[in-house]
């Protein structure tokens, strides 16, 4: 029987194409479970999971918590704003204290890149990275690819443009790894100040004109401008950004083909996407959220078996 090649889901970089395939096939069965009258299975009834969030989150946290509850796991939640971290406790001490209460898995979001990798080296529990700073957000990339696979049948050979703040986006990096491992073509598009300096080494196309990017792609994955991570000004004003890089319905309608519009959320309506584009028939944004629960159930289910 197939098994994941890893004990932790730290990033897409660390897993292989077979792992991605196994996660997708497992998620297919969980998607069926989520459409039943009773949406719960008892698989993880003896597993305790801690959701440790050192950074704000709505979607990811709710999605993980729901996935855990649908699998009948015991769940504890922790957020740094209301904890002893404010009193000066280190990350490792905090986590070891949680683990002393016999926790089997940790789902962690942290503002420092590499925080879950550090944890995986020092603790015994399975770690799931729910976003580490500007580095990786593996479950988001998996659910994005899963949504593409659902619409097109497969990811291989598809052209995907990632548009927006590439520099500060963990979603962009995880998506680039995930899409390339599955044989898709990837383009990044954004103002030159928001593209990482060494982006060419990742083997992706770079485009500065959003119209050309839309014309090229089958799927446009639009990202939010992460103002909270920007200490300096990367562009003159949000108004100017939305004028040059904002996507509206007229642009989508003017293309000579149908493209899929994705967004990991939260959307800043009127900045990267106008409301008429976000709510148009091109958009699969809410499908992504729905698939997120099935993907996270699959990841937790497979990692829970990797312990024994």
């Amino acid at each position: 029987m197939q098994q994941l090649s890893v004990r932790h889901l730290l990033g897409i970089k660390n897993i292989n194409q077979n792992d991605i395939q196994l996660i997708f096939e497992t998620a297919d069965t969980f998607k069926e479970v989520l459409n039943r009258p009773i949406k719960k299975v008892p698989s993880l009834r003896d597993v305790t999971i801690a959701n440790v969030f050192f950074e704000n989150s709505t979607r990811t946290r709710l999605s993980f918590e729901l996935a855990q509850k649908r699998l009948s796991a015991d769940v504890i939640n922790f957020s740094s704003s209301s904890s002893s971290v404010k009193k000066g406790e280190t990350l490792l001490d905090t986590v070891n204290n949680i683990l002393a209460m016999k926790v089997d898995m940790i789902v962690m979001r942290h503002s420092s890149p590499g925080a879950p990798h550090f944890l995986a080296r020092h603790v015994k529990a399975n770690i799931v990275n729910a976003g580490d700073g500007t580095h990786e957000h593996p479950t988001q990339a998996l659910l994005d690819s899963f949504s593409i696979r659902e619409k097109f049948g497969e990811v291989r050979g598809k052209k995907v443009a990632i548009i927006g703040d590439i520099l500060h986006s963990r979603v962009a990096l995880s998506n680039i790894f995930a899409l390339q491992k599955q044989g898709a073509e990837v383009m990044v598009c954004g103002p030159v100040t928001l593209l990482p300096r060494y982006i060419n080494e990742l083997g992706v196309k770079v485009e500065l004109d959003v119209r050309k990017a839309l014309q090229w792609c089958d799927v446009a994955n639009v990202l939010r401008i992460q103002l909270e991570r920007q200490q300096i000004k990367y562009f003159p004003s949000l108004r100017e950004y939305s004028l040059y890089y904002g996507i509206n319905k007229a642009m989508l309608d003017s293309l000579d083909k149908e493209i899929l519009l994705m967004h990991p959320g939260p959307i800043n309506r009127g900045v990267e996407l106008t409301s008429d584009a976000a709510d148009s028939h091109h958009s699969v944004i809410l499908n992504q959220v729905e698939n997120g629960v099935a993907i996270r159930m699959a990841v937790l289910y497979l990692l829970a078996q990797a312990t024994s």
Partner: protein
Amino acid sequence: MQKRILFDSQLLDLTLNRLCQQLIENHDAFEQTVILGMQPRGIFLADRLQQKLTGLLGKEILTGHLDTTFYRDDFRRRESPLKPNTTHVPFIIEDKKVILVDDVLFTGRTVRAALDAMIAFGRPKKVELLVMVDRKYSRDLPIEPFYIGRQVNTIMSQRVLVEWKEQGAAEDAIWLIT
């Protein structure tokens, strides 16, 4: 390794006919009765029964495929991980009589998981178990079948191999491997 045949395709067909007659005796026109085949191998038997019953009764019999993976009691307790199969139950079993179908009954643990799994689709009025091969004296749980193709005395180390044409075998056959 020794291979002893339990059913060749002819005997299998005869036995299927007999089981269908027994089912009709107890369920008349199958008005409130559904068939649930257990993944991964009980589904072939369930589909065969459905075909035969449809021929005999001249109506479609509600048939579903039930996967028990998420309800098993050996999750995280076995060497190899469990990979789920598809569940396809396109109806609600509330107040229905359910005939649970599997090819081989051994410890009874999969049947216990199936009893759990089917509750997600409603509360059945009654559940009966149909198996092709009943391995006697090997049960871990108090579970016994209603309809039996054949009972065999086996020991733990023996294995029952079931081959269906639908899976790519040349002929339907059931073997006892020692």
